[in-house]
């Protein structure tokens, strides 16, 4: 009896070995192949543009999920970084003649620095109050952007006059769903790979330990504020990458992209996909879009249906799609192992 208990306890607390670099790269290559296959096999332009949108939001969700996974913190204001990145790129492209590549790198750097500074102050606020604080900060930027009509165009949004060529590629390729899908997919896979590699270093275990018990980590002799702020900054930069993709795709930013309901929606994607893995939130985003499109075609009450299904998923399936998938995978592995034995 006690042997059984200790065996299951061991299974649960067992630290999973980090996947090797080679294996990660192989998985990334496989993911890229899937993207290529999707872009070749989908003929409908409508579905393609849906998938492109979904992939852009998958990048957003990846960033938000990273914060939840590594810091255990919920942000209701991440739309701030998504929208602000679009506005920064737009302003820089419209007002200066800098090459778009430079603009993008500078935007990412600026968002990173801004988020890091902000995080040094706000990550000290514990628990639920943190969520409400991010909500307030995000909303204040929404208000600021909507009100400063002269600079941002107010509620009408801002058109971005990209040059005809971006990175030596025709602008049209960025604004056409099937080629943009590949670009977004590539970005998504590259970001997941980069984050996975980052978590293989000491940074991953350290931040997870802080998430579980910050005080104990401090007793061991680590500083905890800087790693937590770093997680927040990285999460903001990933989200900003999504915002930049969105700006490139539509050539337009509007204050709506900063509204707290966007943050809430992406949080739904994160929970739907499951935040215990890096890729879960991205899957959640794609499922959200496909589901919303499917429901929207049949009824106008998609909000109700979505609300109810969200509640059902959260209550019945707390680990989300990724959790369900990894449970299924473990089950299959055990089944195969038993058969072979």
């Amino acid at each position, binding site marked *: 009896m006690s042997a059984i208990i200790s065996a299951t306890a061991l299974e649960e607390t067992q630290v999973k070995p980090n996947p090797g670099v080679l294996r990660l790269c192989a998985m990334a290559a496989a993911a890229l192949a899937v993207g290529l296959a999707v872009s070749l096999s989908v003929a409908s332009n409508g579905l393609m543009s849906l998938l492109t949108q979904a992939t852009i939001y998958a990048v957003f969700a990846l960033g938000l999920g990273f914060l939840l996974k590594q810091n255990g913190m919920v942000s209701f204001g991440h739309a701030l970084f998504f929208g602000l990145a679009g506005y920064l790129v737009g302003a820089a492209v419209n007002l200066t003649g800098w090459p778009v590549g430079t603009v993008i790198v500078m935007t990412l750097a600026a968002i990173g620095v801004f988020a890091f500074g902000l995080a040094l102050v706000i990550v000290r*606020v*514990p628990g639920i109050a943190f969520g*409400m604080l991010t909500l307030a900060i995000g909303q*204040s930027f929404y208000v600021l952007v909507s009100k400063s009509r002269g600079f941002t165009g107010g509620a009408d949004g801002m058109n971005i006059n990209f040059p005809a060529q971006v990175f030596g590629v025709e602008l049209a390729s960025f604004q056409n769903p099937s080629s943009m899908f590949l670009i977004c997919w590539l970005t998504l896979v590259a970001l997941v790979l980069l984050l996975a590699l980052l978590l293989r270093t000491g940074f991953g275990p350290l931040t997870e330990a802080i998430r579980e018990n910050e005080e104990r980590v401090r007793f061991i002799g680590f500083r905890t504020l800087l790693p937590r702020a770093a997680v927040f900054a990285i999460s903001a930069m990933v989200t900003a990458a999504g915002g930049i993709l969105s700006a490139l795709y539509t050539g337009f930013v509007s204050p709506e992209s900063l509204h*707290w309901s966007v943050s809430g929606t992406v949080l739904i994607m994160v929970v739907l996909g499951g935040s215990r893995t890096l890729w879960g939130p991205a899957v959640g985003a794609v499922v959200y879009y496909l589901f919303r499109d499917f429901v929207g075609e049949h009824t*106008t*009450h998609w909000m109700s249906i979505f*609300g109810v299904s*969200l509640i059902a998923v959260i209550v019945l399936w*707390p680990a989300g799609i990724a959790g369900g998938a990894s449970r299924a995978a473990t089950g299959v592995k055990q089944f195969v192992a038993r058969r072979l034995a």
Partner: protein
Amino acid sequence: MIAIQILNGLVYGSLLMIVASGLVLIYGLRRVVNFAHGSLFMLGAYIAYAASLQFGFGGGLAAAVAALAAVGFCLDRFGFRLLQDRDPLTVMLVTFGLLLVFEDVVQSVWGKQSYSLPAPEALQGTVELLGSPFPVYRLAIVAVGALVAACLVGWLRFSRIGLFIRGASTDPVTTAMQGVNTDRLSGGVVAVGAALAGLAGVVSGPFLSLSPTMGSDILIDSFVVVVIGGLGSFAGAFAAAMVLGQVQALGAVYLPDLAALLPFALMTAVLVWRPSGLSGSRV
């Protein structure tokens, strides 16, 4: 001029106070940050509008408060009670899902256009106050706010149930061990909290106009109030609501460009100074 603005601030502060005290009640007993609170506020206003077409303002008020109390009771019985062992984030997202459902229900019943709920006859018109006319109805809002505050304080401080509520908000386990049925208590308290949101919705009906976004605007402001005050603290929420009302009203006059930013700036400043809010020790 300034005096009138201060009065206007008092009006909005009273509304915020009623909404926020419902949030505080629910947070105190269930540790739930209720994202659906704004949509309960909106639901109250729309139900009162529908009922007032038949029974007048008083009938609308009674119908809305009763309906919202029932909604609150069901929310606790079939939601919070079943989820009380789950992660706070989970419950928060469930209330977010409810927000979507309530908004959809209101939009599909009443559409997207805005309505106005007429004030009761006796409270229409204006009075001469400090040399300028002031709507009577707004004074009535302040009176309702004061009444709600007095009743809540009386209820929580001096009644036996109030003692149980205070006990259960501080330490639910010990309170339950003393023989208090905390589940039943929570059902009642969440019903009262939801009814307060509905009451605020009805009262604000003639003051603001009824639209599907009215809930989310006041939700954000009352979050700011609750966080500034310290989650779970009535005294803090009362004070913060009054301050925020003034900030909104005076900001609109003296800093029109930045007025909408001020509440958030205030909240950020308070939290940086005291991460647990003005009078909160628990988060």
